[in-house]
């Protein structure tokens, strides 16, 4: 398996405050990797640093090419879709317009409507609501929309920021099943940041645990899930 994304010695800053202190990890092509950690550990910052949304230093390579210095929109064009924290719904636009925005950086405009139909097949609830203002959807539906919108890019890599946040357990389970399906069938590599460690470890192949801006643990997801001391000290279940 080849490395799709490699992050080396990543340090990120919000103004004067340093949020990441030399983070390194790899993500293999076709894998589903999870970053776990408590509030404020630096999970969101890591995803933002990959997309150059925060000031950072260190080496980030995607398919062997450096991302450093590239603007967010150019990074997106390489096929990195980011589902931001809190879903990032365009609340006053319709569901369909949200999906169209996911494809706004694509050049092959003719293929877009076909992809929208594919998303409706993945997420039938979005089809029912396609003319509705996206802000009126429920939290779970908005999260589905956020994932579908990111897929509209036809990404190689999808970055997901706490997809389970604020959702009912049943819906979370649904969503993760769909993510697994997308990962296997559409060959989209996924980097998912989660607080719900138990669930994330169930479906991910590989896991990294972050604490205050550093990686403190990494390994096969199953091994981490089975290691009681790790679970108790870092994951809290």
């Amino acid at each position, binding site marked *: 398996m080849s490395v799709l994304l490699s992050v080396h010695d990543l340090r990120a800053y919000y103004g004067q405050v340093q949020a990441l202190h030399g983070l390194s990890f790899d993500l293999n092509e076709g894998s589903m990797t999870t970053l776990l950690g408590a509030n404020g550990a630096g999970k969101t910052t890591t995803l933002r640093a990959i997309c*150059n949304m925060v*000031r950072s230093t260190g080496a980030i390579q995607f398919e062997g090419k450096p991302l450093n210095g590239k603007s967010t929109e150019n990074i997106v064009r390489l096929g990195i879709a980011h589902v931001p924290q809190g879903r990032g719904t365009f*609340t006053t636009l319709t569901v369909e317009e949200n999906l169209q*925005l996911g494809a*706004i*950086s694509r050049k092959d405009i003719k293929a877009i409507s076909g992809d929208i139909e594919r998303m409706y097949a993945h997420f039938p609830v979005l089809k029912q609501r396609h003319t509705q203002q996206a802000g009126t959807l429920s939290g779970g539906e908005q999260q589905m929309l956020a994932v579908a919108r990111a897929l509209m890019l036809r990404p190689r890599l999808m970055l997901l920021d706490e997809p389970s946040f604020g959702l009912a357990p049943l819906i979370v389970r649904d969503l993760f099943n769909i993510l697994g399906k997308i990962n296997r069938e559409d060959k989209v590599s996924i980097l998912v940041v989660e607080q719900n460690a138990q669930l994330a470890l169930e479906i991910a192949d590989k896991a990294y645990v972050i604490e205050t801006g550093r990686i403190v643990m990494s390994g096969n997801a199953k091994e981490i899930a089975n290691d009681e001391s790790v679970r108790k000290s870092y994951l809290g279940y």
Partner: protein
Amino acid sequence: MSTIQETAAEAHPANIDVPSKKNMGLGRTASWAMLIVLALLPLFVRNFVIFQMTMLLIYAIAVLALNILTGGSGQFSLGQSAFYAIGAYTAAILIEHGGVNYVLTLPAAGIICFAVGFLFGFPALRLSGIYLALATFALAVAMPQLLKLGVIEHWTGGVQGLVVTKPDAPFGLPMSQDMWLYYFTLVVSLAIYIASVNLLRSRSGRAMMAIRDNEIAAAAMGVDLSIYKTLAFGVSAGITGVAGALGAIAVQFVAPDSYTFQLAIALFLGMVVGGVGWLPGSLAGAAFIVFVPNIAEGISKGLSGAFFGVLLFVVIYLVPHGARQGAIYAETLFNKLKRS
């Protein structure tokens, strides 16, 4: 730091309450009815009223321009009077010093103001919400003094300003100057309105509204924040410039103190009263800023400002979403009547 890094570091987008895009325009029946009223009314009123209606349309264009900026891309401006002034002076100087036909001064004013607005958009990228409002406010405050500068006095006429000749109706049409100018303005307004509605419905418009709704998510979709934010500023300034040019021709006079920040505040007021993000509301907003001061003065000469304030308060209290809200009531009522 790039724009998105600034945003991610602060991450408190201004929440602007806007209608869904479906409601951006006006229904077909209502549009035609409005157009017919606007087209026929001047035939039955005095010249002074026609002049007032011309000013109404001109302010409506300026309010619409601000609406594209705020309602469309989510950026505030309290400096629209500056762009209006540049448009007005462009037209006045071209007509009086250059002998240019008044029709051609409109695109000239539009292009110059687009350029100025686009350039102003770059420093504005670093600011958002109230800070941007203050920066644009500074522009509005500076503009009258800049226009009085001695260096350009030969062109601008300094404090005295410039007198502009009012155009006659072409092709020997049997109508007064005021009436001709009204119809000319109506055609220009209509063209700008249609173009603006289409702009907001286009891919670029969608990108702007995505920025308004959620900047971080828009960036994550690959929307180039810098380009679209500055573009929104440019388009808004350009349209305001056209309004300014029309204003100069209609009033037949430009002077620095006609374009103080009070004008900018009035346009902002017009946008809020009309309904932020609802383009047809621009006309209602413009009507408010043109006619309500007169009504207030009719109630009491000495306390006109106070009465204006009271009327404004009543409007904001009763219809906080502006004319859009009124339109929704009217539509519901109309549909009920149709069914019964």
